[in-house]
């Protein structure tokens, strides 16, 4: 049985989709069988970020409504053969996502994949609560910025009350993924510190992803950053996050720390 992970945040634009694609690709690059599911019905973008936008035949809503088989809707990545995408519908309403339908799809995916990564839409409405409903593990994506931290706190509350795990009296495993971290702004003292965010949200840290041109470039060309540029700082951060997700004890490094101006540009080589 595979593990179901929800990538969520409450706030939009913090890097859920980018992170879902990068984490999914990093896991698949390690040989695991991975499917990344887009729950943002009506505003899908995971297909675009993963470079599969021209190949969408059927989507999650088609499968739930019985118009297509799950196997027909899955899109296999052209670069990593153990990586799959289940796109969201672009034209249908999110009310087409039924609780039973989502349960059936997640159940089938769990039986066939090592990891089922659910890319949640922003907000706290139906799409977001359905994306988190069957999760075994939650990754809360947060920017070091006041409104993002506040929304993350709200989402953590939902993870502890509105999920199947919570309803069964079990504890939801939650991890914080700090994204768009800017070492220069941190150095100037104009950004919330990592420790501040951790203290406020009090969930363990999965990784710190630096704000980077490499992430933008990767989206532009339709490739998860772990595939687009394996040696880049954000890619290394995602690879490390995946190792921690798999249980490895690995100290979290703060991007740019103890490195001067040039160190920022000529980052360390890939391991």
């Amino acid at each position, binding site marked *: 049985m595979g593990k179901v992970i929800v990538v969520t945040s409450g706030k939009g634009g913090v890097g859920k989709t980018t992170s879902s694609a990068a984490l999914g690709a990093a896991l698949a690059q390690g040989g695991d069988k991975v499917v990344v599911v887009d729950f943002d019905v009506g505003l899908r973008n995971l297909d675009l970020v993963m470079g599969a936008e021209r190949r969408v035949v*059927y989507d999650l809503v088609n499968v739930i409504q019985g118009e297509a088989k799950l196997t027909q809707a899955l899109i296999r990545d052209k670069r990593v053969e153990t990586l799959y995408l289940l796109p969201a519908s672009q034209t249908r309403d999110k009310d087409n996502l039924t609780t039973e339908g989502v349960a059936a799809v997640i159940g089938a995916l769990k039986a066939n994949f090592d990891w089922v990564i659910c890319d949640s839409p922003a907000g706290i409405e139906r799409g977001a609560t359905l994306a988190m409903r069957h999760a075994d593990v939650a990754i809360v994506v947060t920017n070091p910025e006041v409104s993002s931290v506040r929304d993350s706190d709200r989402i953590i509350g939902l993870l502890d009350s509105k999920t199947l795990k919570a309803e069964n009296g079990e504890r939801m495993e939650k991890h914080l993924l700090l994204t768009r971290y800017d070492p220069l702004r941190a150095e100037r003292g104009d950004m919330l510190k990592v420790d501040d965010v951790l203290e406020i949200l009090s969930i363990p840290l999965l990784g710190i992803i630096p704000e980077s041109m490499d992430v933008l470039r990767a989206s532009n060309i339709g490739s998860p950053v772990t595939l687009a540029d394996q040696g880049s700082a954000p890619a290394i951060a995602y690879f490390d996050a995946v190792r921690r997700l798999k249980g490895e004890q690995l100290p979290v490094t703060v991007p740019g720390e103890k490195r001067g101006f040039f160190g920022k540009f*000529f980052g360390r080589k890939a391991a």
Partner: protein
Amino acid sequence: MSMNLFRLFSRPRSAPAARERLQVLLAHERAATGGDADLLGKLRDEILRAISKHMQIDDDKVSVRMERGAQVSTLAVDIEVPFDAGKKAA
């Protein structure tokens, strides 16, 4: 370090790729929502309907692939037709 420097300046710009991908995608999406329904999707559905008239379609034996391009799109419907398929049809 010199390798990284080289990499930094030799990489092709990514913005043109983003622009081209968006143009193709949005052209298809606008056509699909502007009443002029997605031709590729329509063809897909009608082909599958036509086939189901002559044989029972086992969903797992059918693979449909599409690729939307700027000038041309492709639709590939791959169907395993069993030897006695005709007899099973209603």
